């Protein structure tokens, strides 16, 4: 019985890792620019397709494919921001990005059909056993990447000039631009980085779960809940929120009912907005 509990807990933490990986890019863009990227999950799925297609059709190594996909997504992200998103208000941007996500979904259906795909990597499809608890390697890798990505971002934000500029922009955009920070450039790069994170997450998503174009829709709601729960602009908050929701999901599924598990995220979202709108670690909303 105790093994079952430990297994459920470990599973929850690992699922939390996947959540964190999926949510970090969304959190970054949301926190820095106040833009809710409704197309975030769609970019992740696009990335999964790119890697899958190069891998299955042309036998391109998935790591190489991922690098290609990530570079491509950075370019798409930068172009999207430079030519579209930067020209409209934050609210308009949300609507626009939502439209873009639908456009992307339909384009993906058109290009790659609605069939379910999976990036099968033999080396990752096994698990480690510790005291009767099984830890799947693919989720461990996703977890490590999530921690790594969040850690790297935290480091960049704290110690580099770019990071300091980003934080300055987050705190006071007018003051930052008066101090000679090229706010526009900061925004472009941040948006590109956020999409890149979606791309990295997408590759892991494609390895861990079967995917199809419409799968983005079942993620985006959860991701917004995580970002709001963790607090806008706080990557630590996003990580912690992901782990809490992952574990809650797992324990509820194991001990109560799987039908209720997805409710948890939205219940948490409602409660957060009600009693602590700034989230776990968020700055106070202006």
């Amino acid at each position: 019985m105790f093994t079952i509990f430990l297994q459920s807990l470990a599973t929850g933490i690992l699922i939390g890792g996947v959540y964190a990986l999926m949510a970090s890019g969304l959190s970054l863009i949301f926190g820095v620019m106040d833009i809710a990227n409704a197309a975030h999950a769609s970019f992740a799925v696009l990335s999964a397709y790119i890697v899958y297609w190069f891998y299955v059709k042309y036998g391109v190594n998935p790591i190489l494919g991922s690098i290609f996909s990530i570079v491509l997504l950075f370019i798409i992200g930068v172009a999207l921001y430079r030519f579209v998103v930067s020209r409209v208000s934050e609210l308009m941007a949300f609507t626009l990005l939502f439209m873009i996500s639908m456009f992307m979904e339909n384009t993906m259906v058109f290009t790659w059909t609605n069939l379910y795909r999976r990036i099968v990597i033999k080396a990752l499809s096994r698990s480690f056993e510790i005291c009767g608890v099984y830890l799947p390697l693919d989720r461990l890798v996703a977890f490590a990447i999530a921690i790594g990505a969040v850690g790297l971002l935290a480091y960049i934000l704290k110690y580099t000039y770019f990071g300091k500029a980003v934080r300055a922009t987050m705190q006071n955009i007018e003051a930052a631009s008066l101090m000679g920070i090229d706010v526009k450039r900061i925004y472009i790069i941040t948006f590109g980085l956020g999409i890149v994170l979606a791309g990295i997450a997408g590759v892991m998503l494609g390895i861990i779960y079967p995917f199809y174009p419409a799968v983005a829709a079942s993620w985006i709601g959860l991701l917004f809940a995580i970002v709001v729960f963790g607090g806008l602009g706080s990557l630590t908050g996003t990580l912690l929120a992901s782990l809490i929701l992952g574990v809650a999901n797992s324990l509820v599924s194991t001990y109560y009912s799987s039908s209720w598990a997805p409710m948890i995220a939205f219940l948490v979202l409602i409660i957060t907005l009600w009693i602590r709108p700034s989230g776990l670690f968020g700055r106070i909303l202006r």
Partner: protein
Amino acid sequence: MDRGLTRLTALIIILIVVIAAAGGGAYYMISRRRAARKPIVVGAALSLTGKYGRTGEWYKLGYELWVDEVNKKGGLLGREVKLILYDDQSDPTTSENLYEKLITVDKVDLLLGPYSSAIVFPVSSVAEKYKMLMVEGGGNAKKIFSRGYKYTFLTLPGLAENITLGLFKFIESLPPDERPKTVAIINAKDLFPEAIAAGAKYYCKKYGLEVVLEEEYPKEATDLTPLLTKVKGVNPDVLIGGTYFPDSVLIVKTLKELNWRPKIVFLTVGPAMPEFWETLGEDAEGIMGESWWEPTAPWPGVEEFVEAFREKYGKDPDYHAACAYAAGQVIEAAVKAVGEIDHTAMADYLRTHTIETIVGPLDFTEAGYPTLGPLLIQWQDGERVILAPEEAATGKAIYPLSSTWS
């Protein structure tokens, strides 16, 4: 005044009468023969565009192949068979109107059904209204057959509720001391998987197996590890999953990650597809599923059907095409047995006789669906092996599965 006709006048009158009679008779004979040579018109509407367009296409191929084959054998009742086929654009209302048109304007002699339960449901009411026999291979929702209709017949070999029947037949065929005893039933929260789970529960009771866990999960659930951890904790002998393709793949992958397996893993939809093995590789070994039809099924006529299909279309048929072709076979059998086109007599005939088709021998219930149930298949070394019903088996089962994967 003359009293009476002259001989000449009488002769002329007799001649006229004889010629008229002969002419009328000849006309009658000729027109009768013409009626006999008028083709028998079969009408159908299918989803050829729209949401179900891809699947609807398979039915079209099946119907057209059946018409070809029937005409090659000299048609029905000595008359050529002609097919009128409309496109319902995957819309139930359009389909309903098209069937009204087929019956009242085109005045077709026979009906073949449309595709998908949502469309068969309203269309079967049209067929019932005009008392016309409609054989369909594309809608097996229970609600279609629970309205006491007399004219709608199904060639998919069972309802969604019957999907696990083959599995239980297989379990029953095992020696009593080797039979599994406990069952866990999980299903996606959706109409079709729910029907499967309800059916499985019914059969568990009927065949004396104990259901130790029943659970639903959201259709869009991305990770099933927590649920399967729970199943592992209960440790049943059989896991039955009312699944679609993605969750069926996810369940097998997750079971491997948890390094646990019950004696039987039975999942729906996914295992019937070639993509199942392509996605999972050797991890799919031993997984059971249902199949409405297999090109390897040993039913009479299957080989010839597959060959003719390949020759005509250059690809292999799937179960939709087979069920469409079987619908043609059922109509053919009914018309031949009754000897004329009498819809009530044909429907009565179908209810009381076993019809041999390429999807198996079909015994229809009063409601119009067959009791055969789908085939039970198991993945073995990249092939789908048929295990049940016994008369269709193409191999021996891997049973029980080892409880760990390594």
